[in-house]
């Protein structure tokens, strides 16, 4: 079975490269408003485990269609000889500069292929296109016309009528807004050009769908990991001073927030890379500031690195040892009262003396330290929901973004369809999982959150 090959041709600046970028899911394809950006043809083979499923060719636009057609017509060739005349044209002119673009765009057509002729449906049809379409007829290859509306005006019907005279199949395909479903629909439609190619194209669509689902799985896990990390994050720090200066507490708060921002940014970057958007520039708002009431905050003393409780136990043990020695000295006649009294006295004196002990310094090093604990995020906080909705919007925009789009990804203009309200059942499940994270963050819990997020993202 031969490999399907599709040569994307058309006038300059009508979105040929955009269509290739979207179908090949390659954001590195050079797309510019300047005509002549594509000077030579480029191959985009779609492979599954190294096996080619189909090949797309991005080509330069026609520059001198009428002179080329004049040359072809001068041969007086009958229809069966016309493909050979095209070959002769390429062979005779590829060395000279004048018809460089035509030779580049016709070269891939010398091998078995189908032609995708791209026009802009937002501008009027003109007679200058006829020479190009006539040349394509001379190749004898199966052809499909793609109307790619670049601007806001609508001349699609006019184009359909004109293209219908030169092409068997005509489709409207907006390369900048085509989501995954539209892309696969077009791929399936290309199978109409040659029946032998249908199985390969169907297989390619199957693989792309599996990959799409796998990406959704992975994106859900990435978001779940981010949320788990945020919900369980804590800052623990020791301070020598009592009370801890307000500026230091504020600094820790900022560090806490910075860490959360970093987690969100990392997650966004990973999702963009997952969907093959490697050059995306984001316009985004910062995460909202965390209110003090949203964070658990604790301060406690430590002496020799021990908490007050541990210190009291240590004092009690020491006292008990001394008391026990006294008990032994009197041959047990004290009925272990020495041990009991020693333990109590040790514990009480340690507790009372610990506050003084923490201030004692030897060689300018204090005995005690004040332990500061910030986080995790409180159960009642709305913060996880805010983060989750931001992640949903980002995922929606990235997963459905065509690779031909070159502008910034604007995350500040949120539309309702980017983040529809969750049904009560899912909201309750999400709430329960968020709350469970305050007790423990087991791998199972993380998986459950990932599964729920996948369900939500898929919808």
């Amino acid at each position, binding site marked *: 079975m031969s490999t399907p090959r599709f040569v994307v041709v058309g006038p*300059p600046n009508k979105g040929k490269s955009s269509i290739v970028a979207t179908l090949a899911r390659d954001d590195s394809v*050079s797309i510019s408003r300047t005509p002549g950006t594509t000077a030579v043809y480029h191959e985009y083979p*779609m*492979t*599954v485990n190294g096996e080619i499923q189909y090949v797309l060719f991005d080509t330069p636009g026609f520059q001198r269609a009428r002179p080329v057609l004049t040359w072809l017509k001068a041969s007086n060739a009958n229809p069966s000889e016309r493909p050979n005349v095209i070959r002769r044209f390429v062979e005779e002119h590829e060395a000279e500069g*004048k018809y460089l673009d035509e030779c580049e765009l016709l070269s891939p057509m010398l091998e078995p292929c189908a032609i995708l002729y791209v026009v802009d449906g937002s501008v009027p049809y003109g007679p200058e296109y006829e020479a190009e379409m006539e040349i394509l007829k001379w190749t004898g290859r199966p052809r499909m016309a793609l109307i790619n509306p670049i601007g806001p005006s609508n001349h699609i019907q006019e184009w359909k009528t004109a293209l219908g005279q030169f092409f068997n199949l005509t489709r409207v395909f907006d390369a900048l807004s085509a989501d995954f479903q539209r892309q696969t629909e077009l791929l399936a439609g290309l199978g109409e050009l040659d029946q032998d190619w249908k199985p390969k194209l169907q297989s390619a669509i199957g693989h792309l769908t599996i990959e799409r689902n796998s990406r959704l799985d*992975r994106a859900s896990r990435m978001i779940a990991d981010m949320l788990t990390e945020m919900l369980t994050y804590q800052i623990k720090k020791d301070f020598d001073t009592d009370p801890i200066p307000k500026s230091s507490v504020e600094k820790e708060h900022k560090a806490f927030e910075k860490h959360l921002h970093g987690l969100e940014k990392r997650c966004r970057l990973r999702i963009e890379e997952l969907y093959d958007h490697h050059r995306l520039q984001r316009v985004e708002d910062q995460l909202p500031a965390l209110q003090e009431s949203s964070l658990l905050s604790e301060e406690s003393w430590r002496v020799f690195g021990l908490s007050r409780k541990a210190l009291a136990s240590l004092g009690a043990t020491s006292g008990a040892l001394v008391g026990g020695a006294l008990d032994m000295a009197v041959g047990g006649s004290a009925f272990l009262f020495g041990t009991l009294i020693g333990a109590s006295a040790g514990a009480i004196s340690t507790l009372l003396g610990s506050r003084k002990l923490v201030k004692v310094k030897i060689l300018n090093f204090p005995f005690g330290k004040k332990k500061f604990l910030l986080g995790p995020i409180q159960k009642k906080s709305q913060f996880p929901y805010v983060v989750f909705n931001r992640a949903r919007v980002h995922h929606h925009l990235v997963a459905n973004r065509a690779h031909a789009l070159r502008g910034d990804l604007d995350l500040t203009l949120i539309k309702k369809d980017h983040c529809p309200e969750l049904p009560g059942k899912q909201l309750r499940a999400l709430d329960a999982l968020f709350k469970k994270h305050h007790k423990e963050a087991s791998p199972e819990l993380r998986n459950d959150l990932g599964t729920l997020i996948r369900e939500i993202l898929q919808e």
Partner: protein
Amino acid sequence: MFFIGITLGFLGLFLSTDLAFAWSTTIEVNDSWLHRATRLLTLPFASIIPSAAPSLELIESTRYFRLDDGGYIEKITAEKAGLWWPFVLCMLSFYGVLPRLVCCVLAHYCLKHHLGSSFKTLPGASDVLARMRSPIIESITRDQQETVPDSDESKTPATPGFDPQSAKAFLSWNKAHLASADFRDPEKTPVTSIGAPHTVEEDKTALDAFTTQHAKVSPLILTKSWEPPTGEFLDLVSELRKRLPSHCPIFILPIATDNDQAYLIDIAIWKRSLRKLADPYLTVIQQSKEKDRL
């Protein structure tokens, strides 16, 4: 210690290898005791394989197997000795092979389970597994592409204040004049049509006639603003320059349709593309109603 070791080793070896010493003669283990012991040992499988449990009679009759013929004890026949084999086989299978087999299966299962669960719990393990399970799909080119930067618009020459209606000679490229009501009326604006749908030969004839008629007049070429200039249009301008005095200005007016306005970006493309001709007397002029596309 060394000699204790030697003694214990000797006894162990002797008892386990010389049956006659251990059972028949020297230690003299009682037959009924041995029968009880074998019954106990064969308990797990005796009900399924009764022949695997040796009877007291068999134990008694096979106790002295080294005595010569003619003694007071009946000689052990090969047939009788052979009755021990189910016992030996079942003992080997039940106490030797079966526990090892069970251990092996159990260990294999436990190892697999623990390895699996420990790997799955590692951060990012699910991602690695998903990637390993999914086919590798690629569709990007290996060709090196040069990114063409858009030119700096500030270098575009300033457009002089030229009123298109004041022009005396009009050329219309690819029927551009039909797009705008300002130029559609041949009475008001007589245009010479070149480009499509005419042939290349017809263009030459039309151009000859035009330059003969307007030998020293600056021509104004009407083009469609939304179609970028092609190589063919640049060829036309070069041809026109050859037929006109070298200092004669040529004006190009990219026009919009009646219902639309020319976009600034399209005008910029026209200016940028025509700079390739390096003709100082070639000027792209603008209609007054351009708008920004984005």
